[in-house]
Structure formats: structure tokens, C-alpha cells
């Protein structure tokens, strides 16, 4: 039986007089890897930010893990925030903390684990995302863009969340790391039963990892479903984006 992790209904987003989303609907099932695709500036990042309560939407409904974001209390919101991990497009690591401290922060704040245990967990997460232990004591300013991405993923995974939001996780990674990343995502999903929502422009990664996708075009969902019958859809973006890719 499939249960619903996230449901977006009739969403409308507006910045000033510019409408970004208009009656947008989508459903994300528990345990699936769900992709948000669409041309640049169509509002993928904005939709993600609305889901994690960073941006207010104009009207409509977002329901996440059973919490209705329209009238969520501050305690529930706090509970919900511990259920997810978020990877920002540019990493957004805390620049005053080393990578190790960045990853350890949620553990230090939210658990009463011993420092030794936390250290073990941090070392494991660093390994998991493919960083070297020597890098753990560096500050975000001292590492490369790709390493920031990995460290940010490790931080997002620190609390073993049920829900993972990823904004362009493979952009800025070298091809090998990108494929490793895809493998890691698949593994995490099968081991921990994670639900993953990600924005991506990386075709390889899209075909390798995503179960279902939503294509945002012209403020609405142009297509929602599996990749198998995506080419039958009448959309200029889909035609050019998926057109050339033949397996």
C-alpha cells in the first residue's frame, strides 16, 4: 500500500504581480524518489522552499507527512523540521564551523549522545558521502564547490531524516562523484526507506534515480508520472529536454 508523504493542492505563488505557480497540484508517495523538473526560473527552488516553510505561498494547500502547512503550530513545525533534511543549491554550510562541526550540530543540539558517539556518527556520514577524514577539520571557505555539496548532504543526513529535499544535488560535481551520488541516493532509499524530493537538470541522474517526476512549465504541472511515457506529452520543454535521450 502506498501512502502519501507530500501533497500539494491548488498552490498559487506570487512575487509582487508576477505569478510563479497557478493551481499547481502534485502528490509524492512515501518511499519514492521524486523529481521536480522544468526550465530555469519556472519555480522549482521556490516550490521546494515553500515545502520546507521558508517561503509563504499565496493560496492553496501543502500537506507534509500529515501536517497541514497552512495552520501548523510552532511545536508541530519544530517536530516536522526534525523529520527532514534539506540540501541547498549552494550548500549553505555554516561558515563559522568546520565541516565536522557542521555535521555534528544537529546531533549536539537535538540529542544527548556522548561526544564520542557523535564523533562516530560524523565520521560515518563523512565516509558515506565520499569525503575524506582529513577534510573534516576544514572550514567551508577552504573546500571546493563539489566538496561543499557533499558536506551539505552529510549534514542533511545527520539526523537520519525520513524526508530529504535536494536542490540540484549533482550540479557542480564531477561525473564520477555524480554517479556515486546517484548510487548513494538509491542505496539510502532502499536501506532507510527515505522519501526524496529533488530538483535536477542532470539527465543521467534523472534516468538513473527518479521513480516519478513532475514537470513544471507555464506555472503548472505539465506532466506528473513515471519517465516511461513522458515523451508522449505535448510540451516544448519535454520535447527538447528528453528528445535526444535514447536509451
Amino acid at each position, binding site marked *: 500500500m502506498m501512502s502519501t508523504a507530500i501533497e500539494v493542492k491548488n498552490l498559487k505563488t506570487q512575487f509582487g504581480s508576477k505569478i510563479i505557480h497557478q493551481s499547481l497540484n502534485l502528490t509524492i508517495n512515501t518511499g519514492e524518489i521524486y523529481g521536480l523538473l522544468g526550465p530555469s526560473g519556472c519555480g522549482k527552488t521556490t516550490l521546494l522552499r515553500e515545502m520546507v516553510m*521558508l517561503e509563504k505561498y499565496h493560496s492553496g494547500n501543502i500537506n507534509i507527512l500529515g501536517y497541514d502547512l497552512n495552520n501548523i503550530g510552532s511545536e508541530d513545525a519544530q517536530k516536522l*523540521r526534525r523529520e527532514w533534511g*534539506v540540501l*541547498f543549491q549552494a550548500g*549553505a554550510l555554516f*561558515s563559522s564551523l568546520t565541516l565536522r562541526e557542521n555535521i555534528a*550540530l*544537529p546531533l549536539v*543540539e537535538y540529542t544527548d549522545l556522548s561526544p564520542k558517539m557523535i564523533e562516530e556518527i560524523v565520521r560515518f556520514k563523512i565516509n558515506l558521502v565520499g569525503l575524506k577524514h582529513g577534510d573534516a577539520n576544514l572550514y567551508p571557505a577552504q573546500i571546493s564547490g563539489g566538496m561543499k555539496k557533499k558536506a551539505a548532504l552529510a549534514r542533511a543526513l545527520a539526523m537520519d531524516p525520513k524526508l530529504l529535499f535536494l536542490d540540484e544535488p549533482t550540479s557542480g560535481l564531477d561525473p564520477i562523484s555524480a554517479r556515486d551520488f546517484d548510487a548513494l541516493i538509491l542505496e539510502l532509499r532502499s536501506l532507510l526507506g527515505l522519501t526524496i524530493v529533488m530538483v535536477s537538470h542532470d539527465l543521467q541522474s534523472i534516468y538513473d534515480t527518479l521513480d516519478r517526476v513532475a514537470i513544471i512549465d507555464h506555472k503548472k504541472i505539465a506532466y506528473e508520472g513515471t519517465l516511461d511515457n513522458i515523451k508522449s506529452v505535448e510540451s516544448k520543454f519535454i520535447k527538447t529536454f528528453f528528445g535526444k535521450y535514447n536509451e
Partner: protein
Amino acid sequence: MNKTLTLTISQKDGTLCLKFLGEITVYTLSKNQETIDKIDRSKLNRVEIDLSDVTFIDTAAGIFLLGVRKHFEALVSQTQLVCTNDEILRTLALVEKKQEPSKEHKERFAKNIVERFGKFIYKHYVAFLSFISFLGELFSASMRYFRSAKNIRYKEIMFEIYESGIKALGIIALTSFLIGVVVAYQSAYQLKIYGANIFIVDMLGLSILRELAPMMTAIVIAGRSGSAFTAQIGAMKITEELDAMRTMGFDPYMFLVLPRIIALMIAMPILIFVADIAGILGGMLIAHIDLKITVELFLERFSDVIAVKHFYIGVLKGPFFAFLIASIAIYRGLMVKNDTQSIGFNTTKSVVEAIFAVIVCDALFSIAFTNLGI
């Protein structure tokens, strides 16, 4: 041959021939435009733009040439563009395809003084409202913060006290010492005239303890810590660190805002105390050198005439000034938009507004204390 000369003009029987030569690039355009502007346009009926001796044009030149053609098309019945070079034609075709006719963009200026004044007032009204909403959020956050002692982040508070308090001790002591010296020196001259040397103690004690030390401390701290708070928080906003904190359930008010405000409110009275000591020392030095008042005499007179309440009043101002400086600085930091310009803008604003707020607050204190007879 002159390298910059890329255009020759010949005119006969009403036919204007613009013959371009060599390479036309973005660097030679304005010269060509000047030459074309000087052409007498009165008796033209045909224009020929000859590109046959042109070896290369860039896209800016393409835009320019099409513009020239359009300009003459509007003037005369016949315009012709002569060109055989395939690359140049392709460049022209590309420009023609991708060029968006620039609309006559008339910025409507609010010329009307009423309109401008209205907009000005409204902008400041909205800014004021958003500051009030910041204070409201601050208040509700502090209610949550102090509900249980477990929430209080001693480590951050200690760190901020060290950063904005302890590290500022030197500069504040020095500034205050110099202020003491200056005030004493200026008044010594006047007092000598009346032979009222000993009253320098009364003057210094009152002015430094009540007004000068708190004020100087506030100004130095606004410049030092206020600007730092704004820039730190503004930078965190740009790098999305604040967003990352929020998604992790770390309320920035608990983690960044309140620790800074509390730390400054604790540090400020201590700094004012140090400023008091340094200022009086400075005054004492001048009294000794200039007015021959010994340290013993100075201190004896000091304890006779300066009531301890003056000291308390000065120190009491500390937390109020600290709150103003820290909250304005942090508010300004949170106002930073997603661009680097606005960090500079808001940091400047933060310091200016904090100093202004401190002076207003000090004036209110003066009125209140006078009316209370303290």
C-alpha cells in the same frame, strides 16, 4: 593608412555612399557615428551602404549598421546595402533575428513634490512597521527563550561578551581617557580665570559619570559591534545559512539574535564602568598638571561632592543603549537582500541609526531624570 578611418563618404547627385573599410568593431563605432551625424541630409534621395571592402564586423557593428540603414530608410526612398562577404551577411542576419527593438523607455519621474513626499513618507512608514514587527518577533522569541533555562545559550552569550565586550575594553578606556583629558583641559582654562580650580572635580565627575562615559561607550560600540552584527547576519542571509538554520529547526532568534542582544546588554554596563574610571583618570591627570590639584585632594573632593547616584545613572543607561544598538544592528542584518550591495548599505544604516537612537534615548533619560529630580 589611418587605422581608425573605417568610413569614407561620397555624395553626388543626391546619392550618398557610405563606404566602410577594414574591420568595424565596437571600438570604432562612435567615430563612425560622429562622421555619419555630420552628413548633410537635406538633398538626399538615395543611400548606399557599401560593405564590400569590409573584412570583419562584430555584433555591435552589426547592430550599428542595421541602425544606420533603418535611420536612412526613414529619410529617403531608396537604401541599399552592398555586401558580398558571407560571414558579414550571416552576422547581420543573426543580429536582425535576435535583436529586440529597444522600446522608447520613458522613466516616469515623480516630478510632483506631493507625490515624492508621499512616497518618501510611505517608504519610511513601511520600514518603521517592519522594525516594529521585528521587535514583536523578538519579544515572542524571548518569551520562548526564557521559559526554560535549558534554552539559554550560555556558550554563545559568553563568546559574544568576549567579542564585543572584553575585546573592546582597550579602545573604550583609551577614548574615554582622552575625553577626560580634553574636557578637563578646556574647563581648566575657564576655571583658572575665576580661581575656582577645585570645581573641576564637580564638573568632571558629573559630566563623565552621567553623560560622557555612557555616550562614548555607546558610540564606540555602535561602530564596533553594531556594524559587525549587521555584516555577520547579512552575510549569513546571502549564503542561505539563515535558511539552512530554519529548515533544521534552529530558530535564528534563539541562536543568533538573542545571544547577541543579551551579551551586549551585559557587557555595556561593564564597559561604561571602565570608561568612567578611564575618563576620571584623564581628568585627574590634567587637574594635577594644569591646576596643581593633587590626587589626594581630587579624590577627597570627589567623594564629598559626587553622589553615587550619578554613577548608577550612567551605568543604568548601558543596557538600554546596548539593546538599541544590538537590535537595530541585527534588524539591519536581517534586512539584507540577496546582493552584496545591500550589506554595505545596511551596515552604514545600522551604525548611523544606532547612534541616533542612542542620542534620542539619552535625551529622553535626561528629561525623565530631571523631572524626577534625580
